[in-house]
């Protein structure tokens, strides 16, 4: 069984935000009204954290792209009353939009504020309906959503691999954010596969995970010389 994980190389990442946009487009994520966004209801599965350290002129700004960490010991799934979010056998933390009752307990329980909620009926650019990605189901009002590691793409490459009956190649399963990252800073791969890039990098001396002390075992590794 593969265990999918993501590695983000902060030494390469410039903070350009392409991953945020790619995610929005690939996953049919709604764009909320300006006032709503300003009030903290903007929906980004891939978020951007800005950390400013040091005193002028030795200021260091670093930008940290933040998807869902797909924790291996996810506090969010534990609290869900209806199993609308769960950890699947390949290590993805999934959402079942059709079952979610919208209690937002999982959001309250996520230490990394990775989930977003459909506070209103999701809306798209008038007329954009025509360009919605048919591989990704559209969410409805009142349910929670978050980064899925582009699970639909995993399904697709699996199907392709099955047809050619061969195992998946490393890097074949490529989420939208990684695919478009101009710095090639995002890797997604199988931790169980010792030769996978993700496995190698996750064992690099630069690798760290956010708040490891919590023991939630995030499966998103960051690489950085300066932690």
């Amino acid at each position, binding site marked *: 069984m593969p265990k999918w994980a993501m590695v983000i190389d902060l030494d390469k990442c410039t903070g350009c*935000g392409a991953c945020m*946009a790619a995610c929005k487009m690939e996953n049919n994520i709604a764009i909320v009204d300006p006032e709503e966004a300003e009030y903290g209801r903007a929906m980004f599965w891939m978020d951007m954290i800005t950390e400013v350290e040091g005193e002028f002129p030795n200021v260091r700004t670093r930008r940290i792209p933040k998807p869902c960490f797909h924790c291996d010991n996810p506090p969010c799934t534990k609290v869900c009353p209806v199993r609308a979010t769960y950890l699947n056998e390949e290590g993805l933390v999934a959402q079942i939009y*059709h079952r979610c009752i919208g209690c937002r307990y999982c959001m309250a329980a996520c230490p990394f504020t990775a989930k977003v909620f459909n506070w209103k009926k*999701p809306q798209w650019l008038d007329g954009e309906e025509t360009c919605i990605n048919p591989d990704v*189901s*559209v969410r409805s009002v009142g349910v929670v959503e978050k980064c899925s590691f582009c699970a639909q793409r995993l399904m697709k490459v699996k*199907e392709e691999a099955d047809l050619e009956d061969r195992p998946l190649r490393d890097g074949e399963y490529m989420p939208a954010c990684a695919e478009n990252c101009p710095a090639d800073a995002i890797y997604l791969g199988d931790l169980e596969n010792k030769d996978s890039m993700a496995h190698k990098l996750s064992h690099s001396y630069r690798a760290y995970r956010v708040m490891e002390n919590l023991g939630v075992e995030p499966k998103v590794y960051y690489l950085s010389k300066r932690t």
Partner: protein
Amino acid sequence: MEIKRRDFLRLFGGLSGAVLLGGCGLDEVFDVPEALVAKARNGPGIETWKNTICRLCPGGCGIRVRLIDGTPVYVKGNPNYPVNQGGMCPLGLSALHALYNPDRLKGPVKRTGPPGAGTWEPISWDEALKTITETLVKLRGEGKSHQVAWLGYDERGLMKEHITRFMRAYGSPNYFQFSPTQNDIVPYLLLHGRPQIPAYDFLNAKLVVSFGSNFLEEGYSPIYYTKLYSHHRERETRYIQIETRMSLTAANADRWIPVHPGTYGALALGLAYVLIREELYDSTFVKRQTFGFEDWTDRSGEKHLGFKSIVLGNYYPERVAGITGLSSTTILELGRELGHTRPAVVIGDGGAIDNANGTFSLMAVQSLNALLGNYEQEGGVFFVGDPPFAALPAVVEDSVGKNGNQQIPVAHSLDVTFPVTNFSIESFTQNVLAERPYPIRALFLYKGNPLFQTLNHVDFAKALEMIPLVVSFDSVISETSEYAHLILPDHTFLEQWDEISNVPSVGFTHVGLQQPVIEPLYDTRNTGDVLIDLARRIGGTVAASFPFENYQKVIEHRAAGIFNSGQGAVASEGVKRFWLEYLHQRGWQLGRYASFEEFWGQLREHGGWWNPIRKQKSEREIFQTPSGKFEFYSQKLKSTIDSLVEKMGQKEQPQNLESVLTRLNISARGDSAFLPHHEPVSYEAEMPLHLITFRVLPNPDGQAANLPLMQEMFGYTVRRYWDSWVEIHPETAAEYGISDGAWVRVESSAGSISVRAKLNPGILAYVVAIPFGLGHSSYGRYAKGHGENPYSILRNLYDLLSGKPALEATKVKISLQSKPGV
């Protein structure tokens, strides 16, 4: 795909339920857009991919569009296209929002009310073109063809040639582009004698020192640079960013060095001082390939001071420290690091050139590359060769055309200002207003949005109102096209044929093929084709100059040249840089295509052609100056000024020279005036703070403000959405009692705007910065009424040599308007 089909079946299972539940919005299916449900009905779609070029900024990235049953549903980077190698920026990713934008014009329209009233009525293409043709033919008949003008934006390559061809054939010298790119060229022109922005071999450099060039965000091709940057991260190349505000590039650099606005040149000369004094410069190159370094005597026996003496005499660290606000140790450190690292390349842009002294400070920056002997060296500066396009048939000119083309272009300044450029939006505006040297009877507005993007909004609007026929090609009505009489909407780039070659500063010859991925959604036309149509309607020599079926055929015609040259290769999986170089060593050519048809087919499939192999240029080729060398002492500038002096009557009168220099805001006298030097910028003393503007990836030039995702992401670095902000240093903010998120009034002598504060320790204490891009009063439902346009409070100042807007020459005062609140 199976899964999806099941998904949709489930979806329908729910749909019946939705009907029962009626309007109470209780069933998720209720939220599924009709179109998607319709799509679901057809079962899983067939997926296809088409390659083309992104045109949302001049970056020229190759993109790959995913189509389901022919409908574009997703855009990603083309992994095989050499410029971006699969990388994208947020803007490019939202391309579909441009295609499906609800505010697009559905066909040609005619203005019936006053400008800005928004009263438009549909008109047929034929009728519209008739009206225009009548005017053009009439003017031509009266021998007034030169009174027709065309204001373009940033178009390059074929489209630029195409328009030039039309204007020449018709008989008008008045085709201009207002994007600052060609004003950018001036300093390079003075030093190199060639009107080309050089490329930088970042890939092989060990140290990159950038003077204000925010290349990761505002570079000509941000994604190209981002790719290089990320490679560097593996190669441990050092980046030093000299910039007033900590931009994205500065944030990613190994060292950020904040300098006062307008003092970049001084710092560059300070570094030159260290290089010269400590003999860290490339003396062979300087001796052999530069002019005006040592003191020299001209033919008339007159003695001249050289760059060396000027620098050693004036730009010693202590003085430079005083000007730039840095410590002299920092300057020494920098100079030594630059001098001791090889290869080290220096690049200048942004703040270094966006000021009243831009030309001289960029000359100073570029001089460092000369001192380091970087030209045509590994990890240095070089010039990319043009693609081997097939030449187009010559333009046919009749007497009317000839006569028209000989007239003085209307954008040529009629006094001494802007002597080294053929265009400045300012002189254009003023001359149109004054009807000098002649009135403008018809104006074509192509791309861009000058009324929003230029400094002198008020006068420009007046100028537009004076012109009897204004035709725009916008696909969304903008502040500028509000003033047009006719709008002939162009396709969006995903519906359009075009050819994008040699994006400035990209390090290899390349051609991107922009091709339609979908039939035009509306009754729009490619402006290239419209021109051909117009030419035919005008007839005579004008028609004769366009012996093409349509614009696409012109592209094919030029591409044939590439095929015949046998150079380079179509950008496909197999053909990566290393293997091209391998072939090159073997001296082989890449004529791998049996026929042009095959080549063209490949080109269409893969979306581009490139040739990374550069043949070394001789110095004569590199430097096209009078001396054939890199000119520290710009003889072009000297002769230009001399000719201005001559214009003023009795030759070589010292007081004439004096007045010319004064009117060009050049305070330096003697030889310094023609050498790279620091020109102090004259700011308004009574204003306490400097105002600078910057641009963000999601909306570099305000043209993306009608894309909802880009509006939402506009402030993604500061978590602000759909809104502008002003960046203030915490200490400055404290002085004014301003806290993060408070509303702040920013006031200059040109006007005032209110924006919310964003405290940012990454900016100089007495400088405030506002992003450019928002503040539209038109341009569609998503753009209108969000944020503020900082250009509306910038003073109407320019670099009087190059015509480049002095975006960092305005000072302001700020005041707290109201505390932060929801």
